[in-house]
Structure formats: C-alpha cells, structure tokens
C-alpha cells in the first residue's frame, strides 16, 4: 500500500518559500534551515476534516493540488537547558488528522524522531530574545524550544499552528453539523458528474475485485517494493480515496431523494461518517502504522450511531467499500507520479462509472429504498406502541380510582355493620363521648382563635416594627449615599491636593532646599499661601546667598586685616629692635661715630670761636638737612665753597686727633666714654694699642697698683722669684714657655726676647696669686700682653684679666667659672641661634669642648690674631661679656656651614678650624656688637651664677670620688711623695669652698 506512494511522494513534494520569508532578508534564504515548506500531497488529501472542507470548497473552481497545503519545514529544535548548544536542525511536519507536529531527521525519513501534541499545546516566544526566531511550545507538561531562524518565519509558524489548533478544536466540536452542511452543499450544487462517477467507479471496482478487502490489503502489503516511501502516505492516500468513494455515494443520493425528511437525513449522515471511520480503523490496524487514528472523533461517531437498525447494512457497505479501496490502490501502484495517477484515476473512474455500474446503482437504490421502507415501518410501529401504552396507562388510572371507591364503600359498610351490632347505650356513650369531644374541639378552637388573634397582633406589631426598621434602613441608606458622596468629594479633594503637592514638591526640588511650610486643608487659600511661601522662600534664598557672600567678603577683609596687623607687628618689632639698638647708645657705623665727633668738635668750636656758623651749617647741610638747628634754611654752597670748607674741616679734625693722640701719649689716664667704646669696638690701631690697653688695665688694677706701689712687680715679686726655690708652678711654666706661642718670633725659642719676660711675668703672677698659681692658658694671655705692653704692664694686664675682667674661679683648679660660662653660652646659643642649637642637639655635639678653649685663652687658640686682638680690645674695655659676643658671632658667622654638616666628628673638626676660618673681622665685630643685640649683662650675670652653682655641685661630687681614689692611690704607691699638683689641689679646694 505504501508502495505506490513511494516514488511519487518525493516528486509531489516541492518547496514553496513563504511569501513573508521571500520578502525578508536574503540571508535567511541562504540559511540552511530552509524556511517553511509546504508539501503538496498529490492526491490532495488532507488529514483534518477542516482542510478537507476547504479542499472541497475549492474543488469546483480550481485544481485541488495547488490549494491543499501541508505545514512542514526545517526548524532548529533546541534543548530546554542550554538550548543554544544542543540545537538540532530537524524536519517538522504538522499532522493534520492527529493535530500533532512530527519531526524527522530528514524529510525522507519513515519514522519521526518525536511528536509534539498541538491539541493542548500553548505557544509563546520571548520578544527580547537574542535569537528572534526562537519560540516555545508547551505541551503535555513539556516545553519544546524551536528556532525558526527568523522572526517572520517564526510568526508564520505560530500563526499557522494556532490556526491548526483552533481548527482542530472547532472540528471536534462541530464535526457532525459540518458534516451535514457539507452534504447539503453537495446536494445543492449537484455538481457532480465527476464526483458521482468517481463514487460509482469506486463501487464498481470494489464489486469487480470481488475478493475480501483484507485479502486486497494483504496483496498491497506484499506487493510493496523494497525501497518505497513511508506507509503513512500510502495510508493517507487510501483513506482519501475511501472518503472520495463515500462522497461519491452521498452525491449519488441526491438525485434519488430530492427532498429527504430531516431526521432520516441526519441519521443517514451519521451512519455514513461512522462507516468511514470504521473503515479508517480497520485499514490502519492491519498496516501496523504508528499513526494515531483520531480515536476521539471516531469513537464519538460510533457511539452516536450505536443502536441502529441499519448497522448490518452499514457493515456490508463497509466491506464493499474496502474492497474497492484495496483494489484501487493496487491498480494505482504502477503510476509514476501521483498527479498523473490522479488524472488517470479520475478519467478511468468516469468511464467505468458510465459503462459498468448500473447494476450497482440499482442495488444501491434498492438498498436505500429498503432501508427507508424499514425505517418508516419502524416509526409507525413505534407510534402504535406509544398509543397502546397511553391507553394502558389510562386504564390503569381508572382501575386505581375504582379500587379507592371500593375501599371507601367497604369502610362505610363495616361501620354500618358495627353500629347495627351495638346497643343504644353504647351509642349514647359514644354520642356523649363525641359531644365531649366536640366541646373539647370547640374549646381548643377558641384557644386556637385566641392564639391566632394574638399572633395576628404580633404580626401587625412586627409589621409595624418592620416598617420602622425599613424606614431606618432607608434612612441609613440615604445617609450612606450622602456619606458616599462626601467620601467622593473628599477623595477628589485629596487627589487635587496631592496633585498640588507633587507640583509644589517639584517646584521646591527645583529651588534650594527650604523646609516646606505645612499645607492648609482648604484648596484655594492653600495655593495662595503656597505662592506666598514660595515667594518668601525665594526671598530667603536670595537673602541667604547674599549673606553667605557677605560672610565670605567679611572673612577676606578679616584676613587682610590680620595680614596687615602681622605686618605692622613685624614693623613694630623691627622698630623696637632698632630702638633698642639706638638706645644702647652705640652708633652703627664708623661714619656715624666720625660724624658725631665732627659735630662735637664743631660745637666746641662754635662755643669757642664765634662766626663759624657758615661752617656749621655746611656740615649740617652735608647731612642733607634742610634746616639747621636754629631754624634757618640750609645754605646752599657752590661746589668749590663746599670743598674748601671740607678741606678746612679735615685739617681741623686732624689737629684735634693729634691733640687726642698727644693727650694719650702724654700718659693721661684713659677715661671711659661712649666714643671711646665705639672706637675701641672698631679696633684699636696698633700704635695706640699700648696706650689704650694700658689705660683699660688701669681701670681695673689702678687702685691695687697704687696701693702696692710702683716697685711691687719689679722689686717685690722679683725678689720673691729669686727666693722661692720651690715654686710648684715653675716647672709647668718652664715647660710651657716654648709651647705658648711657638709660631711667634718673640716666643719661638729660648733665645727669643719674649721668653724671659713671659717666664718672669708668669712666675711673678703665680707668686702674686698663689690661689691660681699657674694655669695653662695664662701663658698665652701673658704672651699676648707682652706683645703690646711692657713686662710690668703685661703682669698687671694678666692681673686685670684674671682677677677683674674674668669672673672668679675662672682659672682656679676646677675651672668652675669657665665651665659655667660654657653652659651660659649654650643657653645663649639656644636663644640667639636656635637652629644651630637644635643642630648641635641633634648630633649631640658638646659645644663646650671647643668654646672652653676660647674662653680660657680669650680666643688665643686657633684664632687669627686680628680677630682675637679685636676681642681683646673690647674685652679690656668692656669686660667678659665680650667673650659671649664673640663666641656667638663666630658661631653665627659659620652657622650656615655648620648646619650642612651631618655628623658629630665633622662638626668637631669644623669647630677646630672655625677660628682660622674667621677672616672677616669687620663682619665678626658687626655681628658681635650689633646683630646679637640686645645683649643685657644682667641676664648673663644671673645665668653665670646659676650655672656656677650647678658646676660646683657636680665638681664636688667628682672631687669626692677622686679624693677617695687619690688618697688610696697615694697611700699605696706614692708614700711620702707630694706633688705640686697635690699641693695645688688642697689649696684650690680650700679656695673653691670658700
């Protein structure tokens, strides 16, 4: 049976690109999964009855082959999970009759890989999916993902599937009625020759074949070529042909019965369809195909037509039809394509219909006539039966009535018999009883009536109550409605308010954040107020902006003022510093000093000799003074005049200076004066050094010297030196003589002129001041003194320095005052040179290790002579404060360089060289006497006292340790031997304690 379908199927299948698909992108065309394809089945059969109808509708107008289409095509079937990867390209075919979607690996495959039930399926697709062609079918609890590879194709598929589903469901509902329509249509058309002929041909064929239908089918199966097409198709063809045959039969009916009665017509239609379905079942079962046979519809049909008197006839008809079908399919097996086969078939059938089938026709007509006859008979019999039954029913009722009457009569008869049988007494009794009973009944009636009236009253009451309640209800309803209205109103208001609120909020958000004012409940005033508030908010914002700006500006102004104040403060500080500098009474520059001297000179001159006002004015004018001290305007001289006057002045000054020098040389005692101080600070010229130093020394030792007499040094001390055979200091002095100023030609050898003097001075001093005796360092002081002073003056100079200028205990055994001075200096460094102090602190450099030498030797220690001589000049005149001035000046002078040194040894080394590095004496004096101001002596004195105490305490502790050590040492190792130092020690200690 599948054999004849085999070859033809491939040819009959041709691909028709969907219209929408054609219009879509060419890419989709190139895509391997070729769109939706319609397969035109050559025999024009369609599984579902709906398509069949369609085909039948169009059959009269056009070729059915082109209109009957099958929904099929390539689709990508995707797995439900990770479906992107497991997608398979499969051939999908929609089974019309089963309403299922079958899918195959290839279009030629016999057996489908699977099926999807569309009947109860639902479709959906993701609109936002990355793959536009994917849609899903949910059926029987499963989800199928299919990719049509293109949105248009997908929509087409979905639309078609939906249509099929709808059609199927409709078909199931209206199948019988449609069937009627269909038959009626055919009747009305009366188109028929072909159809009629076909039907006849089919019948004649079946008749001609003669054999059993099963046999025929078996033949069909046996005759199947080995590599033919699916049985499915052949079966379909078979079924189609069966239907055609049936339609032929039906068509044939029309001429025989022009106006058939409605009920028989209906039944007949049913029967016909039943037959067909039975045929389908029977034909499919032997073929063994897996196709579903629409059991729902068939069973429904068979049920509807179940108890039928004509069933036997139907069976017969079925057999005959089957025979015909098998025969037909057998004969068609040789045809190469379906289309030609169709032609031949139709033509063949037409011919055979006209020639052979009269007998059949007669038979058929007879059969139908007979069936009608029989049915009519059945109907009449049924009616008779009904009438008889009705009569029976009526009779029964009559009998029942008669029986009842009979019973009543019987009862009366019995009572009569009883009454007749009883006595009068009994009757009376009975009557009495009955009377009683009557009375009782009456009583009860009355009671009941009372009850009734009561109940009526109650009822009326209730009614009244009910009326009032109803009134109340109505009232309440009214109230409810009113309230509803109010609620409505209120909700409306709220809505409006909310709208307003949102608007306001929007406005507020646009503006700067301001706390929103609480909103009043009424609308119109609310808006008005809102506006006002908004205005005020705007105003506030403006104000706020302005105020912030104002604050900023005020801040700036304040900053500026602060800056100005700072500047003023700095100015003030500077001015103060200047004030103090000037107050300390020293003129900064030599020019000033000279100017002062000049002025003084001029003033004295002016006092002595009159008429020198011009000169005076000239001098003043040279200082760019516009008015003189008397208020006269400055006299403007010509250049020549000025020169003359200046020369004259110079000469005059020269004279004065000579006078001063003469006065000095004449041995007049030096007198303290600010001028002299200034001059000395500027450095005493070599030729005046002796005089100035001598004069200065005399400030300190003049009285002592006078007291001791002029012979003290030369005679008294000279004799002492000669007498003292054992001078503990002499040995050390002798050792140090050549080590004092070894680079100075006056002291470089024993033969040098300075050495004997130095020896004498030192020896004399050690005897003069046995407390100090000789301290290393004094030799240098004496030597420097000897450079400028006579031996005796040098001695006194040493005395002045050690006893008067330097603090007490400077050269005594412990050097306590000298050590204390180092601490004072440290403090001063911290005050005046804080950076340097921090630097020393950081590298833990002990400044005193170096400055100690400076102080003990008055800078005669690795310092250039010009420098230390300047210090000597000032020191002799001013005192020991000069030591701090110069020490600090040295440090300040080298501050920057020292700050670059980052290691203690480097700093120490630098410090050792520092004295030699200071070459600019002018600068040093400038720093010492001006830059370091103010430099109050009082604070230095107090500091000295403080530190001296500390040092003494420390030294005492050290002495105690040493004393212990010394005594034990002496006892053990140096018995009986007392060194000069030991003697010194005892003396010094006594002195120190005193």
């Amino acid at each position, binding site marked *: 049976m599948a054999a004849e379908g085999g070859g033809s199927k491939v040819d009959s299948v041709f691909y028709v690109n969907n219209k929408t698909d054609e219009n879509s992108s060419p890419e989709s065309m190139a895509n391997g999964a070729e769109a939706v394809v319609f397969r035109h089945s050559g025999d024009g059969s369609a599984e579902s009855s709906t398509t069949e109808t369609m085909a039948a509708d169009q059959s009269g107008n056009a070729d059915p082959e082109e209109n009957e289409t099958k929904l099929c095509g390539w689709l990508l079937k995707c797995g439900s999970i990770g479906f992107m990867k497991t997608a398979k390209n499969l051939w999908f075919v929609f089974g019309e009759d089963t309403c299922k979607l079958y899918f195959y690996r290839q279009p030629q495959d016999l057996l489908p890989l699977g099926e999807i039930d569309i009947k109860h399926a639902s479709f959906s697709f993701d609109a936002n999916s990355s793959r536009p062609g994917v849609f899903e079918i949910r059926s029987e609890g499963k989800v199928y993902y299919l990719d049509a590879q293109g949105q248009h194709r997908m929509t087409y598929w979905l639309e078609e599937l939906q249509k099929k589903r709808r059609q199927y469901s409709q078909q199931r509902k209206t199948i019988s009625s449609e069937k009627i329509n269909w038959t009626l249509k055919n009747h009305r058309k009366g188109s028929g020759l072909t159809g009629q002929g076909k039907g006849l041909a089919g019948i004649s064929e079946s008749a001609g074949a003669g054999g059993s239908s099963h046999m025929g089918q078996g033949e069909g199966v046996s005759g199947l070529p080995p590599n033919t097409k699916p049985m499915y198709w052949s079966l379909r063809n078979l079924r189609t042909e069966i239907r055609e045959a049936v339609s032929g039969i039906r068509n044939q009916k029309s001429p025989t019965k022009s106006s058939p009665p409605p009920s028989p017509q209906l039944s007949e239609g049913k029967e016909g369809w039943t037959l067909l379905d039975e045929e389908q079942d029977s034909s499919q079962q032997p073929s063994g195909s897996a196709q579903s046979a629409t059991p729902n519809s068939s069973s429904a049909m068979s049920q509807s037509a179940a108890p039928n008197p004509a069933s036997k006839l139907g069976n017969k008809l079925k057999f005959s039809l089957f025979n015909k079908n098998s025969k037909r399919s057998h004969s068609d097996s040789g045809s190469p394509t379906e289309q030609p086969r169709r032609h031949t078939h139709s033509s063949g059938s037409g011919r055979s219909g006209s020639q052979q089938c009269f007998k059949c026709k007669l038979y058929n007509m007879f059969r139908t006539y007979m069936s009608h006859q029989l049915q009519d008979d059945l109907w009449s019999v049924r009616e008779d039966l009904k009438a008889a039954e009705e009569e029976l029913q009526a009779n029964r009722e009559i009998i029942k009535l008669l029986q009842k009457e009979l019973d009543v009569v019987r009862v009366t008869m019995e009572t009569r018999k009883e009454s007749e049988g009883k006595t009068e007494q009994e009757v009376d009794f009975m009557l009495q009883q009955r009377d009683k009973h009557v009375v009782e009944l009456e009583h009860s009636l009355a009671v009941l009536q009372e009850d009734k009236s009561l109940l009526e009253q109650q009822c009326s009451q209730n009614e009244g109550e009910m009326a009032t309640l109803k009134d109340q209800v109505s009232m309440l309803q009214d109230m409810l409605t009113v309230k509803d209205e109010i609620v409505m109103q209120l909700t409306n208001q709220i809505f409006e308010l909310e709208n307003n609120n949102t608007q306001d909020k929007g406005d507020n958000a646009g503006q700067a954040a301001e706390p929103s004012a609480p909103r009043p409940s009424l609308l119109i005033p609310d808006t008005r107020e809102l506006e006002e508030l908004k205005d005020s908010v705007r105003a506030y914002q403006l104000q706020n902006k302005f105020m912030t700006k104002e604050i900023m500006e005020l801040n700036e102004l304040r900053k500026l003022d602060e800056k100005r104040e700072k500047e003023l403060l700095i100015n003030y500080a500077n001015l103060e510093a200047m004030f103090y500098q000037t107050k300390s009474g020293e003129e900064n520059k030599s020019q000033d000093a000279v100017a002062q001297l000049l002025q003084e000179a001029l003033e004295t001159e002016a006092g002595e000799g009159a008429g020198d006002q011009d000169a005076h004015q000239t001098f003043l004018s040279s200082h760019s003074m516009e008015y003189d001290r008397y208020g006269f305007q400055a006299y403007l001289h010509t250049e020549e005049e000025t020169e003359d006057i200046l020369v004259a002045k110079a000469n005059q000054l020269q004279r004065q200076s000579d006078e001063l020098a003469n006065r000095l040389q004449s041995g007049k005692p030096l007198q303290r004066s600010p001028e002299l101080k200034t001059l000395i600070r500027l450095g005493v010229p070599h030729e005046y050094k002796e005089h100035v130093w001598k004069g200065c020394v005399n400030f300190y030792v003049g009285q002592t010297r006078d007291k001791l007499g002029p012979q003290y040094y030369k005679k008294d001390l000279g004799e002492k030196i000669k007498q003292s055979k054992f001078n503990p200091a002499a040995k*050390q002095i002798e*050792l*140090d003589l*050549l*080590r*004092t*100023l*070894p*680079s100075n030609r006056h002291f*470089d050898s024993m033969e040098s002129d300075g050495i004997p003097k130095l020896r004498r001075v030192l020896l004399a001093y050690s005897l003069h001041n046995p407390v100090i005796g000789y*301290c*290393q*360092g004094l*030799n*240098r002081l004496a030597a420097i003194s000897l450079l400028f002073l006579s031996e005796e003056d040098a001695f006194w100079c040493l005395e002045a320095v050690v006893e008067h200028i330097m603090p007490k205990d400077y*050269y*005594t*055994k*412990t*050097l306590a005052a000298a*050590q204390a001075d180092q601490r004072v200096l440290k403090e001063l460094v911290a005050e005046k040179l804080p950076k340097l102090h921090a630097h020393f602190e*950081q*590298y*833990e*450099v*002990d400044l*005193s*290790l*170096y400055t*100690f*030498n400076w102080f*003990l*030797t008055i800078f005669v*220690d690795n310092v250039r002579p010009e420098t230390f001589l300047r210090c000597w000049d000032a020191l002799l005149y001013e005192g020991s404060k000069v030591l701090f001035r110069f020490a600090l000046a040295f440090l300040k002078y080298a501050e920057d360089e020292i700050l670059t040194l980052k*290691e*203690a*040894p*480097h700093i*120490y*080394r630098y*410090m*050792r060289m520092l004295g030699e590095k200071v070459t600019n004496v002018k600068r040093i004096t400038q720093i010492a006497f001006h830059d370091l101001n103010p430099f109050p002596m009082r604070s230095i004195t107090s500091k000295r006292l403080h530190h001296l105490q500390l040092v003494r305490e420390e*030294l005492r502790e*050290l002495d105690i*340790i*040493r004393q212990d*050590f*010394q005594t034990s*040492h002496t006892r053990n*190792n*140096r018995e009986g*031997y007392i*060194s000069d*130092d030991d003697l*010194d*020690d005892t003396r*010094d200690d006594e002195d120190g304690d005193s």
Partner: protein
Amino acid sequence: MAGRGGAQRPNGATQGKICQFKLVLLGESAVGKSSLVLRFVKGQFHEYQESTIGAAFLTQTVCLDDTTVKFEIWDTAGQERYHSLAPMYYRGAQAAIVVYDITNQDTFGRAKTWVKELQRQASPNIVIALAGNKADLSNKRMVEYEEAQAYAEENSLLFMETSAKTAMNVNDIFLAIAKKLPKNEGGQSGQQRPPGLRLNNEQNQQSEGGCCK
C-alpha cells in the same frame, strides 16, 4: 654606632667594614700627647708643640687586614687643673692611650693614676694602652722599660715605648689598639656611645700620612 657598616672606602684600600672608635689621650702635661697625635695624624713633629688647653679633636683612619678603623681622637690637656674636664672626654671612649715621659718618673706615676681612673670610671671594656713617650731621649731615661712593661702586664694594658719625634712605635701603638678593639658591634658592650658619632663612608682626607703609614 661605631663598628657598624661595611661600606667600601673610595680608594678601595679595603673591602671590609669600617669601624669607628673614640680614643682619648691622657697623661701628664708635656709628656707628648699632642705630639703623638700630630705624628700619628699628620706625620709632623714640632719640638715645641703648643700646649693644649681643654682638648683638641682630630681624626685618623687605620687600615687593618679587612677592617678600616676610624679613630676620633680627643687629645686632652695634661695639666692637673684640667683634670675636672677629663671625664667629658673619656666618657664613652673605646680606647685610651695613657702617655708618660720616660724621662720623668712623675709622669709615669701620673699615668698610673689615669689608668686607675679609667679602669674605675670609663667604659668597662675600654682598651688602654700605655705609651712611654720620648723614647728618643733614652739617655735621660727615668722610667725603666721593664718597670712599665711589668705594670702594663699587671693591668693588662698594651704597652709600647714611643717617640713622636722619631715616629717610633707611633703608628704601631695605634694599630695595636685597632687590632685589639672588638670589630663587631658587640664591641660597644653597653657603652653609652653618643649616637651623634655616626659612621661616615667618606674617607678622612684630613690625614696627610694616610693609613698604614
């Protein structure tokens, strides 16, 4: 801290570490402390070296086999009067040279005093060397070599008779001290070495004699 490091000297004389030690010279006045230092540091000698007031600071570097030893030398004043300042200088010193004059017995006695004071008050592990200076004046010798050596041995001191004038044993005694000094960091042995005295890799160009001279 001294004794730390390992940087190379620029001249590549040694590849070893650089140790820095504080050394103090003590002794009676005019025994030749400053002369010894001058000889060691500058290779010079002055017959009449200016007497030292307070103290003088000098540096010199000595090359050992694998170590560069940098001496910070504090040359103190010898007069007894400056004795009170001495602790300032020998505080934290790792080495000391106590100098006496072989021509003056007193100076030897004074040296012994210094040794005792150092042993008592200086750093516990201080390396003390005894130097009998003016060895060139052996004809005026007052302190016998044996006596001094015996004393040195007794007190476990390094001992040499030196002459700053002839440079005899001057470098040797410094080298001997350098060798005896502990080169590891433990050499500090808890001394309160001023942290300000740090190691510097720069070579000390101050010394004309250079190391190993």
